[in-house]
């Protein structure tokens, strides 16, 4: 099937969906709001109108709101998936697995510490609502090896089985899950056409680079992790930074060594501001990605890029909404201050 046929309908659909993302004006209005219910009232006038249906205004837990917002994103992607058959439908399912992985982490954490937390699937975005994993079975697991046994037959199984030998920390488990997702994703690229693989690799390569930089930087600065751990848990996905470059970064002496290595690279912007480096690193990464994604979208038509970009833009928007709400709850700074923490530049 040619892409013109495959994307004829879905391209239009995505255009429509992009039109429904929040506008800058929406953002400005949201920033002026004083309370969380005010924000929700305003969102109910936008495309998020059904997200908060049936939610008790008095008990707007942060977590409840976030879960609902994320489910909104899942719903959108599932709706887009209806436009595809076969390999492409599978590919979109793999994109959705990102949420599944996050939920699995929550489940594992709950098994270790706080069982009450997962008495019902409310705390989870994906499992128990979408996908094939059986929430009842998983949450009934008494231990981590039991949970892994319940995952038999899923793509996660073979990545988690080695972790059932001996005592493994939750850090190891969660890192392995993330890396498992990366390698599942890498493998599923084969479902796409050669050209599309290239394009997706370009985008995800940048993402992987930035993730790696953040991981190495923080690992070094805050956690003092040994270089081999930094290296082994980094993503080998090859954007601009290949394995050798990552290795060099991991084994460089300290944080300033990392910054030195990147002096000439396109990612130097992460290390140029000494005072605000730590505070804004994540936002800088996201904002950089935001503009790169828009650029990718401009250059492409009738291919998978549009979907990936839309999905990320939606994710960014949801994260911004959460940031705005968090500000009301914890800081209450003025709008101009908050703008600095948002991914979208106003």
């Amino acid at each position: 099937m040619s892409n013109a046929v495959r994307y004829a309908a879905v391209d239009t659909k995505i255009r429509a969906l992009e039109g429904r993302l929040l506008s800058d004006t929406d953002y400005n209005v949201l920033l002026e709001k004083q309370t969380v219910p005010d924000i929700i009232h305003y969102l109910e006038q936008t495309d998020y109108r059904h997200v908060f249906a049936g939610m008790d205004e008095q008990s707007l837990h942060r977590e409840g709101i976030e879960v609902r917002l994320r489910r909104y994103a899942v719903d959108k992607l599932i709706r887009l998936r209806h436009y595809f058959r076969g390999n492409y439908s599978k590919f979109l399912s793999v994109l959705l697995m990102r949420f599944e992985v996050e939920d699995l982490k929550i489940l594992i954490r709950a098994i270790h510490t706080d069982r009450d937390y997962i008495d019902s699937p409310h705390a989870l975005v994906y499992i128990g609502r979408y996908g094939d994993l059986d929430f009842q079975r998983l949450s009934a697991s008494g231990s981590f090896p039991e949970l892994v046994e319940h995952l038999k037959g899923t793509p996660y199984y073979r990545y988690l089985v080695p972790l059932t030998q001996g005592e493994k920390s939750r850090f190891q488990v969660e890192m392995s899950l993330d890396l498992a997702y990366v390698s599942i994703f890498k493998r599923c690229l084969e479902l796409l056409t050669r050209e599309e693989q290239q394009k997706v690799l370009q985008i995800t390569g940048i993402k992987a680079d930035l993730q790696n930089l953040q991981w190495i930087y923080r690992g070094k600065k805050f956690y003092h992790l040994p270089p081999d751990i930094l290296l082994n848990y980094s993503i080998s996905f090859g954007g601009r930074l290949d394995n050798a470059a990552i290795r060099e970064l991991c084994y460089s002496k300290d944080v300033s060594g990392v910054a030195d290595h990147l002096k000439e690279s396109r990612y130097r912007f992460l290390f140029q501001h000494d005072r605000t480096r730590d505070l804004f690193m994540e936002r800088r990464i996201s904002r950089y990605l935001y503009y790169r994604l828009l650029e990718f979208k401009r250059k492409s038509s009738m291919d998978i890029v549009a979907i990936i970009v839309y999905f990320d833009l939606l994710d960014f928007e949801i994260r911004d909404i959460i940031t705005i709400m968090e500000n009301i709850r914890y800081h209450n700074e003025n709008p101009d201050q908050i703008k600095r923490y948002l991914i979208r530049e106003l």
Partner: protein
Amino acid sequence: MAVERMKMLNIIGHLEDMDFIARELVLLGCVHPVNALHEINSNNFTISTTVKNMDALMDVGFVKPYQKNQEADRIAGQINTLLEAFELDRDDITVDPKSKAGLRGIAGDIGDIYQKVEKCRKDTESLNGELARNRELKEHFGYLAGLDFPWQDLMEMENFDFRVGTFSRENTVKLRTNYGNIPAIVYPVKSGKERDVVVTIVPKTLTVELERIYSALGYQSLQIPHELKGTPAQIIQDLEEKERDRMAQLKACEETMQKTREEYGPLVRRACGELILYEKMKEINNETACSNDFFYMAGWIPAGEKKRLEARLKPVKERTLLFCKDPEQVDKSVSPPTRLKNSGVLRPFEALVRMYGTPSYNEADPTVFVALSYMVLFGAMFGDVGQGLVFFLAGLILAKWKSRPNLGGVFTGMGISSMVFGVLYGSVFGLENWIPPLLIRPMDDITTMLFAAIGLGVVLLSIAYLFNIWNAIRRMDLEEGLLGQNGAAGLLFFWTLLITVLLYFQKGKLPLPMPVIVLILAGLLILTVVKEPVANLLLRKKPLYRERVSDYYIEGGFGILETLLSMLSNTISFVRVGAFALNHVGLFLAFRTLSEMIRNSGGKAVVLIIGNIVILGLEGLIVFIQGLRLEYYELFSKFYDGAGIPYHPVALTVPRKRRTSTGSF
């Protein structure tokens, strides 16, 4: 053509007779069970008060649902396991109706066989487990086959650890980029599809560091016991020997199993017969209510089967109470199931009716009407002697050899009708020069064809109206039958309008003066609108309206529009019968033109044959569906409710091979 009369059967008996009676009812095979507890609670289960009935009556106050028989269920489970182990198919097993053993009678034998088979199964399972583990170990040592050291020595080194384990593909790559920083000797011995096997030798002092790196890379160590003796090559030999030994044991196990199978096969088959019977009995028993000493059963049986039932229950007659009641004596909330009774030729068409819905017990069975009208409609649209013959033969084959009696029967009917119309139209395999038409050539007189189709529609619709009136009479429903839009008023309106239009266009004059006609039509229409209050007035019932008066008239006003529209559309819809008759000829004409463009006669024949196949397949299907559409939409909507309960007696089902015409297509 009828719906079979049913009777409500109530049985009260002593608990110890329950299994016997249930068994006899299953073998009789015509009882449609009803929940007895529900019957008792709704006071349908009436017992005449006599001295003889006293005990049973006293007990009625303490009834509860039938409790499952756990003992029997356990035996049933064992038999099912045995069936699997003996590789027997339930469908091949026939029930011996004379056997009186029951499940409990064979429990002992079955228990013994079950023990034997179970032991065999467990042995096989553990042997298979051992073999699998053995194979795994053999594979592991295969990686180390070149090592000429005793395994125990390797395991017991004082300053070094010797490990065998695997990494996933991508992590091996990562490991390789960092070889320089790893405090151990790492030696890849095999690269698999997903995981690579590596041997690691690490100084004991550095194991902590190594483990940290390894666990980050998802290292999975292979489980190899330390205490194996000899070098890897010797160990492999030992393992192979062990494998041979276990294989021999496995074979012995299988032989025992085979012997058991031969020895006890017939017994298990018999047990399966009992099981099938028991499961059917359970269907009846599950609907039964029990007290401490008595049981209460209820169900529907065809009125004609009463004698056979009594004969079967003769042995317990003295101790059992048996009542048969007519449906009229039973509470209205329990409606009898519907069993259609039609002669052999018409029976396949029951499937067409059932596809829409089973008629209610009090509704007229439309099968005859459907059979005849459907055949006429199909034939008129698809009239051809040759193609009809093909359908006829296909129907025979389906019914006889493919065990599809219903579809086959409908096909034969369609085929016959198609042949009859083929003679009338003078068409054989589309060719119109072989026989003269007895009636008409569709293409020669298109207008007549179309008008005739509408005429046919008018006749069929009128019959549908009559059906509705008849049903209303049976239900004693004055409102629908006399005043409803599909009742007498509707029919009168339909014909008045029809005659007027016909006379006006044919002769240019009206049967009655215009104002009178308008008055009659308007009167009839208004009658259909005010049917509910008028009917209630006539019957002296209150209140006159079941809903709010304003709502009723708003709905009624739209009802008029609907009446007029549906009357028009239902009638005109029948034009398609003529249109498809023309279409049938037209499609063939296209193929004939194609064939005439070909010079050699072989080619001509090929085109004509292809044309016939296309017409048979494509047009046959379309006409088949259009016929159904006319039946369901135009006709059934006028009179047919189809809200009945199908009659499902508890009976031993006949294996599929011998199944006669039951069920749907």
